[in-house]
C-alpha cells in the first residue's frame, strides 16, 4: 500500500485553491481592472501633483527633491493671486449657474408648451446649436462680434437703441464672460429640463387643471417638485463643469484686463506655462481640487439624491 504523495495531490489542490480564491473574491476581481485604471489616471496624477506642490523644483529623481513644506502654498496665496482667482471663479460659477438654470427652464417650458410638433422640433434644434460650438471658436467669434470697432453687437446697440454700447471686454469683462458662458451652456440645461418636462405624467397636470390651478401654480406645486431630481442632477453636472471653465474665458479675455477675469484655471495655466512656476501651479491645483471635491460632497450630502427623492 502506498500513501498519496505530495506530488500527486498538489496540482489538484492548487487548482482548487485558485478556484476558491477566485470565487471568494469574485466582486473584487471584477473591480480590479477599473481600480487599476483609476489609480493610473486619477490617483497617480493627484499624488504627483501633491509631490510637486511640496518641492522646491521638479526633478525626475523624485527622491532627490528638495522638500520645502508649505512654501509653494504660501507663495500661491501671497504673490500668486490665488485668493483673487478663487473669488472670481466663485462669482462666475454662481452667476452663470443661476442664469443657465433659470433660462434653461424657461426655454424648456416655453418649447414644451408649443402646440405644433414641427415647431417643437425646430426650436429644439435651434436652441441646441450654441452647445455645439467649441470654446476656442466661441471665444474667437465673441472677440470679433464684441469688438468695439468692427463688432456687430456694439454696432446694433449703438444704432438700434438709445444706449451707447459699453466696451464689453474692458468695461464689463466679468459680465461678458458670464453672458457668453450662459449663451454657450443654457442649451445643456434646456435639453435636460425639456426631457424632464416631457416625463411629467399628463394625469398630474390634468388633475391640477381640473382643480382650477392656474399655470404658475401648476409649475410651482406640481411640475417643479416632480422634476427635483432632474434639476438637481443637471445643476450638479453643470456646477462641476463650470469649475473647469478655461478655454472660452482664456480665448476671450486672457484673464484680463489685468486679472479681472482670472479664473483659478487660468491662474494655474499662467503660473505653469508663462511664469514657469510649476510648483506654485501645483499648489493652487491641489487647493482647488480639495475645495471643489469638498463642495460637491457637501451638496450631495445635504441636498443629495436621497433628499431629492424623499
Amino acid at each position: 500500500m502506498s500513501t498519496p504523495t505530495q506530488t500527486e495531490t498538489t496540482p489538484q489542490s492548487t487548482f482548487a485553491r485558485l478556484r476558491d480564491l477566485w470565487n471568494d473574491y469574485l466582486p473584487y476581481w471584477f473591480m480590479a481592472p477599473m481600480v487599476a485604471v483609476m489609480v493610473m489616471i486619477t490617483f497617480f496624477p493627484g499624488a504627483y501633483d501633491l509631490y510637486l506642490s511640496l518641492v522646491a523644483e521638479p526633478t525626475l529623481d523624485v527622491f532627490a527633491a528638495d522638500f520645502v513644506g508649505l512654501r509653494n502654498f504660501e507663495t500661491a496665496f501671497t504673490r500668486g493671486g490665488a485668493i483673487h482667482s478663487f473669488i472670481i471663479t466663485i462669482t462666475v460659477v454662481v452667476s452663470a449657474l443661476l442664469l443657465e438654470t433659470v433660462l434653461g427652464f424657461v426655454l424648456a417650458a416655453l418649447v414644451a408648451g408649443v402646440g405644433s410638433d414641427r415647431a417643437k422640433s425646430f426650436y429644439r434644434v435651434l436652441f441646441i446649436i450654441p452647445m455645439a460650438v467649441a470654446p476656442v471658436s466661441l471665444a474667437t467669434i465673441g472677440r470679433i462680434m464684441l469688438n468695439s470697432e468692427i463688432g456687430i453687437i456694439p454696432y446694433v446697440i449703438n444704432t438700434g437703441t438709445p444706449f451707447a454700447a459699453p466696451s464689453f471686454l474692458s468695461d464689463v469683462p466679468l459680465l461678458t464672460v458670464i453672458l457668453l458662458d450662459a449663451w454657450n451652456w443654457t442649451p445643456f440645461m434646456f435639453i435636460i429640463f425639456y426631457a424632464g418636462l416631457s416625463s411629467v405624467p399628463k394625469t398630474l397636470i390634468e388633475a391640477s387643471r381640473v382643480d382650477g390651478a392656474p399655470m404658475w401654480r401648476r409649475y410651482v406645486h406640481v411640475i417643479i417638485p416632480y422634476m427635483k431630481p432632474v434639476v438637481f442632477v443637471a445643476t450638479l453636472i453643470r456646477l462641476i463643469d463650470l469649475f473647469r471653465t478655461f478655454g472660452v474665458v482664456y480665448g476671450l479675455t486672457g484673464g484680463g484686463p489685468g486679472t479681472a477675469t482670472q479664473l483659478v484655471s487660468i491662474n494655474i495655466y499662467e503660473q505653469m506655462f508663462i511664469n514657469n512656476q510649476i510648483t506654485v501651479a501645483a499648489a493652487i491645483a491641489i487647493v482647488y481640487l480639495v475645495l471643489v471635491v469638498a463642495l460637491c460632497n457637501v451638496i450631495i450630502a445635504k441636498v443629495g439624491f436621497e433628499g431629492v427623492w424623499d
Partner: protein
Amino acid sequence: MTNSNRRTFLKATGVGLLGGLAGCTRGGDGSDGSGSDGSSDGSGGSDGGTSTAGSDGELAVPLSEYEDADIDWRQFEGSSINIGAVQHPWVSAIKPAVPVFEELTGIDVVWNVLPEQQFRTKRQTDVSTGAGQFDVFYMDQVVNQFREEGWIQPLDPFFDDDSLFDEDWYEPDDLFEASRWQAHGGGYSDTWTGMPITVEVQTQFYRKDLYEKHGLEVAETLEQFRQNAKTIHENESDVVGTVGRGDKGYGMNIYILNTFLRQNGAELWDSFPDDSGLDSDGVIDAAEWYVSLLQDYGPEGASTQTWSDVLSTMQEGRAGHIVSDANLFWPGLTGSDSSVADKVGIAKVPSPADGQFSPNAFNWQISTSKNAQNSEQAFLFMVWASSQPTNTWMHVEGDAAFSVRQSVWENDEFRSRVGENFAQVTLESLQEAAPDPFDRKYPEWGQRYSEELQRAIAGQKSAEEAMTQAASIAEDIYSN
C-alpha cells in the same frame, strides 16, 4: 414642398449647421498667433520628416559659397539633427535652402514644427527632463532662465573650435550689435547662448493719404505723434487716431512701452535685483503718455487689443497710425490683405523732444541643449543658417524681411524688393535698437507688469499707481 421634404430639408440644414460650427474648431487649439513676439503669422512649415533636395537636383545656393570657409563641413557625415521650432516665417523661408546644408555636410535635418505655445511646453519638457530630443531649438525671452537652470549649452567652445568655425568667413560683426547682445542673454551672460536668426524692430506706420489730407508732418516727437492722432481722431469718422497693443503679456503692451521708457531715460532694473526702476519718473511719464494716448485717441476697449487686432484695424483703414510696431507688420500692411496697401508710410518711432531714439527690438535665436546628442552638428547648422550666403538668399530670393545681418539690409537687390524707404528706416532703427534685457524671472514679473499696465489702459487705476505696483511686484519676486 411636401411635409416629408420639408422635414428632410430642416434636418439636413440642422446637421449642416452643427457640422459647420463643429468644423470651426479645427486649428483653433490655442495657437491663435498671440505670440509674445508678435510675429507669429502662422506660416508654418511641415511638422516633421526629413527634407530632401529639390526634384530638379539644383541647389538653392551653390556649395561654392560655403567651400571658401575654413570649416570641416563633412566631419559628421551620415548623422542627423532634430530641430524644434515654432510656426514662424523663418522656418518657411529657410526650408527650401536646407537641402544645401544636407548636401554640404551629409547631415540630415529633421523638423519638429509646432504652434508657439505647444512648442514652449514641449521645449520645457525636453530640457527639464534631460530628454535631449532637440539638438537645435527656438529660444526667446526665457533664455536666462534656461541658462541659469543649466538647460542650454554655451556656444563659445564651438566658436573656439577651428574645425567648426571660421571667423573671417562668418563675419560675426556683420550681425547687429543688438542681436549679438541679446544672444548674450541681454547682458546677463558673457557667453553666446545661441545664434540670432530673426530680428524685428519697432517703427511707426502711418496713413499717407490722411496725413496729406490734414496737412500733417510725420511725427518725430511724442507730442507731435499725439497731436497727429488727435487731428485724425477728431476729424475723421470711422477712423481712430491711433491703435496699439493694450493686452497683457510680455510680448504685448510692455513690449511697446519699453521703447518709450528707455527714450525717457529710464531702464528696466536700475539696480538688479533690488530696484526694478518701474516706479521711476521716466517709466511713469512713459506709461502716462501711452495710457492717455490710447484712452483719448485709440479705439474703444484699447486695453484688450492684441497685435493682430492692431494689424487688422490698420489693414482695414480704421486707424491713422500705429503707435509703434514690429517691422514684420510691413508685408501685412502693404500686401494683398491690406485695403490701404498703397497708402501706408513708414518712419522711425517718435521719441521725446529731449529724449534719445532707442526703439525696442526682439530676436529669435536658436540654441542647443546640454543634453542634446548632436550639439556639434547643431552648431554647424547654426553657422550655416545664419551665414551671409544663406541669409542673403533667404531675403533676396525669398520673401523674408527679418535679417540679423546688416549686409542684407544694405543689399541693393533686397532693398529694391522691399522698398528703399522701408529698408533704410528699418536698418537705422536696428542700428540704434535696444532690446529688452530678459533676466531669469522676466516671464513672471513681466506678466505682472503687463497686467498692471493693462489695468491702467482699461481705466481701472492711474498709470502711476500701476507702475508703482508693478515695481513692488517685480522687486518682491526677487526678494524671495
